[in-house]
């Protein structure tokens, strides 16, 4: 059994999938509307987990899944009615099963009594059915095994004596000795329709005609012969299997000829003895019966010379197959497996991550070469330059391919939410419907995994704080059941996830007074509705009058925001009193590499994500407008856009302050608002490898991450929405006055020096 331990990982992986299938099925299971296919799928999932568990000797797990399976078996036999209580018990059982699998995976024993409560509940459900379960009852009079030959069996396996005898008899009569060379053995199954005789055809003639083609061994099947009393003498009740050993020049069409007039009234299957001869003509004007060999595809593979041979009827003799080399076998093997080929492979995640890392390093190396070649006068090393451009292109494609391997649909997270909604609804006594859309939107695996906690919390929050009680909703003319809508879509190279509810919306008066009470906001401060709504993301903020045991588990929306921003994402909220709230998450599709534009400000280099950039322009003095005590704006494409001087924001010396002397890069955030960044110079487009600033240094406002440029310098990747926030609060006037001004750059620079030596 040790040999089989190598399959443990497969077993755990598969079991995890099966648990998810079972859970999804259980959540859809509702009293009065039982989908038996679903019930069967749940049963099979538990059954398979049990079966595999037995193979590895996980006896606790097997014992528990047996209890679970027994109840599911009764459910699918409709012996136990589906009640809400039963579904709850089954969901609990599924959880316990997951726990048992986890223990088995860690190689530890489950704590004693871990399953007792659930087993008791399962047995209680079984007892409630009144039957006690057929599984425990003695099997009801199994058909007595009357066999002429004694069964060959023990506890683990057995062979039915009569079945084995029949096989042996059939084998003897079949005498599968290979036909002599130059001869082909054909197996013809001839099943005429019962009214064949009425059309004047005589099967006996056809059998005789076959005899004339070679040595025919004819077996007549009497299975369908009715009792004498029921026998209609005008109908045909027989069928035949003919084994014809014929000379190689007797082709398939000679056999087809025999059945020429009756082909439409019979079920005829003609097969050459395996391995398949090199050529078989496709069956004429009949749909291939399900168990004929795939003649068409086989003959399609035959080279032209062999096709010519086919018309002569010289099928290749079987002998070639029996003593043919591996080439022959391999050739036919390819065709035989066609129906079973799988199009997916399972790869260890580490291998993919190594690949991603290598691609990242390659991107840096490529940038480094490009950097060195930048100083070469134009026109020189033309071929090298062109080659480098191609390399850049290929690197980009390679990166995209690798990233798509890591991409996963968000459905793996979304599918966990129905259960959460169910639990929350039960705890709060609210009626909730969950709608999801865009489940197939793909995003990097790491992003998907890290979405679970924030989404869980946001949905809890929506149900707990957002939705009203059913009675209250009814009074307001809303449907009793509230709706939470979860959606995902790609937008501007990012994934945008929205959680929308049709509840009461954010109570701004309450939020504001709470914020003032907690000292988060100065009394009398004038704030826009949007700003008030965003107060809920501040640390230590909670509006619930009493901390419920649902949302109030010590985590607030500030934690959600922190989780999201650690993924390079952002969260926003839009709320309409009485109508509901919409939380919008926007996340990068990948955490590894991005297409960026390198810009310079003074001595510093920054990278702007390409997806944010609209255009860059050198403004004329007439385009610039100053607003008194506010910020500068620029007229771009008929629209006023706020200007942000990066050097003022970050306190960078020796940078160009006059926008007409430098450049303005017009950037756009996911929500569509624009910003004009004043920079010294745009250096060029480049793929950059994202290095987390937080794990190497700490979080900085307005900065999403860092990267290493081709010359080894560290550059910060700018976060456009973050810049907008900063500029709004600082008024763009130097770096003072901001809520949390980004530190000037000495710290990261010192780090950059260290990194250069790495």
């Amino acid at each position, binding site marked *: *059994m040790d*040999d*089989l331990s*190598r*399959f443990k990982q*497969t*077993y755990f992986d*598969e079991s995890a999938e099966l648990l998810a299938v079972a859970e999804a099925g259980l959540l859809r299971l509702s009293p009065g509307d039982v989908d038996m296919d679903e019930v069967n*799928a749940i*049963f*099979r999932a538990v*059954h*398979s987990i*049990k*079966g*595999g568990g*037995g*193979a*590895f000797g996980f006896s606790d797990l097997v014992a528990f899944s047996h209890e679970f399976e027994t109840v599911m078996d009764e459910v699918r036999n409709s012996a136990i009615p589906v009640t809400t209580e039963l579904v709850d018990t089954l969901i609990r059982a599924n959880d316990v099963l997951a726990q048992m699998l986890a223990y088995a995976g860690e190689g530890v024993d489950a704590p004693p009594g871990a399953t007792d409560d659930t087993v008791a509940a399962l047995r209680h459900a079984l007892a409630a059915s009144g039957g006690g379960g057929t599984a425990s009852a003695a099997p*009801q009079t*199994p*058909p007595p*095994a009357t066999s002429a030959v004694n069964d*060959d*069996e023990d*506890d*683990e*396996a*057995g*062979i*039915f004596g009569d*079945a*084995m005898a*029949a*096989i042996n008899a*059939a084998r003897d009569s*079949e005498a599968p000795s290979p036909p002599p060379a130059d001869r082909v053995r054909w*197996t013809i*199954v001839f*099943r005429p329709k019962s009214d064949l005789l009425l059309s004047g055809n005589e099967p006996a003639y056809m059998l005789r005609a076959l005899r004339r083609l070679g040595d025919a061994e004819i077996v007549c*099947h009497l299975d369908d012969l009715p009792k004498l009393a029921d026998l209609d003498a005008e109908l045909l009740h027989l*069928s035949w*299997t003919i084994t014809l050993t014929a000379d190689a020049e007797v082709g398939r069409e000679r056999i087809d000829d025999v059945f020429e007039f009756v082909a439409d009234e019979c079920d005829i*299957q003609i097969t050459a003895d*395996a391995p398949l001869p090199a050529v078989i003509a496709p069956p004429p004007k009949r749909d291939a019966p*399900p*168990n*004929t*060999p795939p003649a068409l595809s086989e003959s399609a593979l035959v080279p032209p010379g062999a096709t010519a041979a086919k018309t002569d009827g010289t099928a290749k003799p079987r002998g070639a*197959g*029996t*003593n043919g080399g591996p080439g022959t*076998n391999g050739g*036919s093997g390819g*065709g*035989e*497996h*066609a*129906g*079973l080929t799988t199009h997916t492979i399972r790869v260890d995640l580490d291998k993919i991550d190594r690949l991603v890392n290598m691609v990242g390093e390659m991107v840096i190396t490529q940038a480094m070469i490009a950097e060195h070649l930048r100083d070469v006068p134009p026109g020189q090393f033309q071929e090298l330059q062109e080659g480098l451009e191609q390399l850049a292109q290929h690197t980009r494609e390679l990166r995209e391919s690798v990233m798509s391997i890591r991409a996963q649909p968000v459905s793996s997270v979304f599918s966990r939410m129905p259960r959460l909604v169910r639990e929350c609804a039960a705890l709060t006594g609210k009626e909730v419907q969950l709608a999801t859309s865009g489940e197939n939107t793909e995003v990097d695996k790491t992003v998907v995994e890290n979405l679970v906690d924030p989404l869980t919390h946001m949905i809890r929050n929506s149900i707990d704080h957002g939705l009203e009680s059913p009675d209250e909703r009814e009074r307001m003319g809303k449907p009793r059941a509230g709706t939470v809508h979860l959606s995902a879509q790609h937008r501007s190279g990012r994934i945008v996830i929205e959680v929308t509810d049709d509840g009461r919306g954010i109570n701004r008066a309450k939020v504001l007074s709470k914020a003032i009470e907690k000292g988060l906001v100065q009394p009398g401060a004038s704030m826009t509705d949007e700003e008030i709504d965003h107060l809920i993301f501040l640390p230590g903020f909670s509006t619930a009058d009493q901390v419920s045991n649902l949302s109030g588990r010590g985590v607030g929306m500030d934690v959600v925001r922190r989780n999201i921003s650690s993924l390079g994402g952002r969260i926003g909220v839009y709320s309409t009193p009485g109508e509901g709230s919409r939380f919008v998450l926007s996340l990068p599709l990948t955490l590894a590499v991005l297409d960026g534009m390198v810009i310079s400000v003074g001595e510093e280099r920054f990278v702007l994500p390409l997806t944010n950039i609209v255009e860059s322009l050198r403004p004329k003095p007439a385009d610039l407008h100053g607003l008194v005590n506010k910020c500068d704006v620029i007229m771009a494409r008929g629209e006023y856009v706020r200007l942000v001087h990066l050097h003022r924001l970050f306190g960078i010396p020796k940078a160009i302050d006059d926008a007409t002397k430098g450049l303005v890069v017009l950037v756009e955030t996911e929500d569509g608002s624009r910003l004009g960044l004043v920079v010294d110079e745009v250096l060029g487009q480049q793929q950059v490898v994202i290095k987390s600033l937080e794990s190497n240094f700490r979080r900085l406002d307005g900065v999403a991450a860092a990267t290493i440029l081709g010359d080894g310098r560290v550059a910060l990747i700018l976060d456009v929405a973050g810049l907008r926030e900063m500029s709004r609060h600082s008024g763009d006037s130097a770096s003072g006055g901001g809520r949390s001004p980004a530190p000037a750059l000495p710290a990261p620079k010192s780090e950059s020096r260290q990194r250069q030596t790495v």
Partner: protein
Amino acid sequence: MEPSVKKKILTVDDSRTMRDMVSFTLRAAGYDVVEAPDGQAAMTAIAAAKVDLVITDLNMPVMDGLTLIRKLRAIPTHRSLPILMLTTEADEKKKAEGRSAGATGWIVKPFNPDKLVSVVQKVCG
């Protein structure tokens, strides 16, 4: 002399783990193994290539094992094809159902690899 042609065995199980284990055990014993995840896929596989033995699970989606056995037995050429069923426990009722459907024999899973090989050798040499 003629090299002996490997016998081909079709293992039908919706559980990947089980299929992997059966395949591994039988390949190690010198058999050629093809796999199918349910009865319907097994029918297709059998139509596409001659197999010498079918080992099937009973509980499967799309088409269960007993239906597969009955369907195969209804085709004259497969009347004497050995079919072993994998059952989870030595359940007399299941065995009886399998027998009347036309199964050749049964193996209890979890199976002992040596046992599997010895039963397979008995029915298909």
